[in-house]
């Protein structure tokens, strides 16, 4: 019986160590004086300086950030519509195909999506003259296409958890469907929209394969630059970049964690308040 008690916590500890050991090693060795990343030669922040002077990386980072922002915003719009349609419109012609197309990018191997989109852009250019050459625009379109799938799943899940009678009540009280969507539904699912935006942003920032297929000269993204560097072996500037990224994500996660915990405590306080006046 006692072995059972140990098993799950032990497995969890092992799991978390497994998850974090590589990340920790990245961070530790970003401060390594030696260029041989894994042989410790003393503490140094020189690689951060080198990173900030590396034009190639900085340029690529800027491109990636712009694409990611555009992508996240457009994906949230399209994905919310798609998620709403799946959750609320029960029957319409072509619903199975629609649902399939929305969900498929979640599991599709990236090489297939990347190849197919590139071939599309090439064919479109040959037939219509647009898009003229590949680059920023084509990468953004490609990213929006798979990001919206993630947003749609999140929104659809949130909407099906939501009590539909709230929307019916609004209808009953005289509001038209369009108004209800913007005044009632959206405010209620707002956190899911934020989650969708953040997820799309991260996925875009991190995408290598699809961007490689559909990019053109002068539009290298950050992952593409990182990949070309690490193919040749370890590179301490990449460690520095990694540490910065982890720091940003960690700060964001901590902030949202504090925010959520505070919300939960406020909710608990409210429920106690409600229980207290049981005069009615």
């Amino acid at each position, binding site marked *: 019986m006692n072995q*059972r008690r140990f*098993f*799950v*916590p032990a*497995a*969890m500890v*092992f*799991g*978390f160590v*497994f*998850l*974090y050991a*590589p*990340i920790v*090693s990245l961070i530790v060795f970003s401060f390594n004086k030696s260029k041989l990343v*894994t*042989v410790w030669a003393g503490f140094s922040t020189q690689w951060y300086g080198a990173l900030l002077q590396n034009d190639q990386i900085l340029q690529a980072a800027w491109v990636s950030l712009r694409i990611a922002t555009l992508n996240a915003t457009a994906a949230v719009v*399209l994905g919310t*519509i798609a998620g709403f*349609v799946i959750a609320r419109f029960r029957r*319409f012609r*072509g619903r199975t195909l*629609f649902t*399939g*197309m929305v*969900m498929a990018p979640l*599991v*599709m*191997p*990236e*090489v*297939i*999506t990347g*190849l*197919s*989109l590139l*071939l599309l852009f090439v*064919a479109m250019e040959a037939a219509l003259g647009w898009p003229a050459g590949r680059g920023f625009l084509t990468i953004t*379109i*490609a990213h*929006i296409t798979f990001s*919206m799938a993630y947003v749609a799943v999140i929104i659809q899940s949130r909407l*099906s958890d939501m009590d539909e009678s709230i929307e019916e009540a609004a209808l009953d009280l005289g509001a038209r*469907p*369009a108004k209800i969507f913007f005044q009632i539904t959206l405010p209620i699912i707002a956190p899911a929209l934020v989650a969708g935006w953040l997820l799309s942003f991260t996925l875009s920032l*991190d995408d290598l*394969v699809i961007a490689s*297929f559909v990019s053109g000269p002068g539009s290298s993204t950050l*992952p593409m630059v*990182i990949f070309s560097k*690490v193919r040749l072996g*370890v590179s301490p500037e*990449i460690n520095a*970049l*990694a540490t910065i990224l*982890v720091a940003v994500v960690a700060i964001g*996660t901590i902030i949202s*964690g504090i925010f*959520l*915990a505070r919300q939960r405590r406020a909710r608990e306080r409210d429920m106690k308040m409600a229980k207290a006046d049981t005069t009615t």
Partner: protein
Amino acid sequence: MSTRGAPVLTKGVNRTASTAVKRISGFGLGPVWHGLRRRFRGLGRASVIGIPYLWLLAFFLIPFVIVLKISLAESEIAQPPYTSLWYWIEHKYLNIRLNLGNYQYLIQDSLYWNAYLNSVKIAAVSTVFCLLIGYPIAYGIARARPDRRILLLMLVILPFWTSFLIRVYAWIGILKTNGLINNALMALGIVDTPLVMMQTDFAVYLGIVYSYLPFMILPLYANLEKLDLTLLEAAADLGCRPSKAFFRVTLPLSMPGVLAGSMLVFIPAVGEFVIPALLGGPDTLMIGRILWDEFFANRDWPVASAVAIALLLLLVIPIVLFQYNQARAAEAKS
């Protein structure tokens, strides 16, 4: 109290509309009026459905059709580097030429067969390991105290938000010949010569399990969190020991989560490129890499397309399974 006596002018549009409706209905035109209104509402609905539908048709579905088309073409030194499928003879006869040679090439050359089989094998084994490692973690988080749960979830999600590419890169530093593990083993005197871990199948397994672990944990957690604990209490009350109760109650009920997580790992892993490219060796055959090389190195677009189509066909069944599972879960909720 009644608002019916109030003058129409001082009330809003809706009131005017309903009064008008009453007048029209009085004339027996009610159904006609409302039929027209329903048409307009239908139009609104259609355009809402249409926006994402059109986007996906254009940028998701049609590309696959084009891939299929090009897989039936021949490679050519041209821009774009493939032939057209049809051409005119004497401006009158439309001749369609489907080149099945690419597919024949795939079938005949054992390289591709092996790559497909190897990819499936690696993906399947990795999925199993993800499940073995991920299930206890998901279970542990689901059982933890609610305030601890958020913290643990954050800990799982944090690596997921950091760059996939960079996390794979981290393993290079750990696994290479003068990397972390080897340095530690040598320093402790456990081995004399460094272990070869980079550019091996082992590294690829490790990389895939590591990178896809959050994709397994999250759906599993979502499922386990909703598990009704009173079911386990009932089992205990009926004389079932906890370990048995796990296999008889918890595990079967968590199957949808297991399936979702497994599909989310297996399907993309089959076509994975980055991990075999960075961590695998020249004989680690994975189909994603083959496709990439066919396209970028050999510039053979038709063959790359054929590889893609074959991969898609291979994955059709798991993909359909995934969709089916998702649809069933959605229905169970309603």
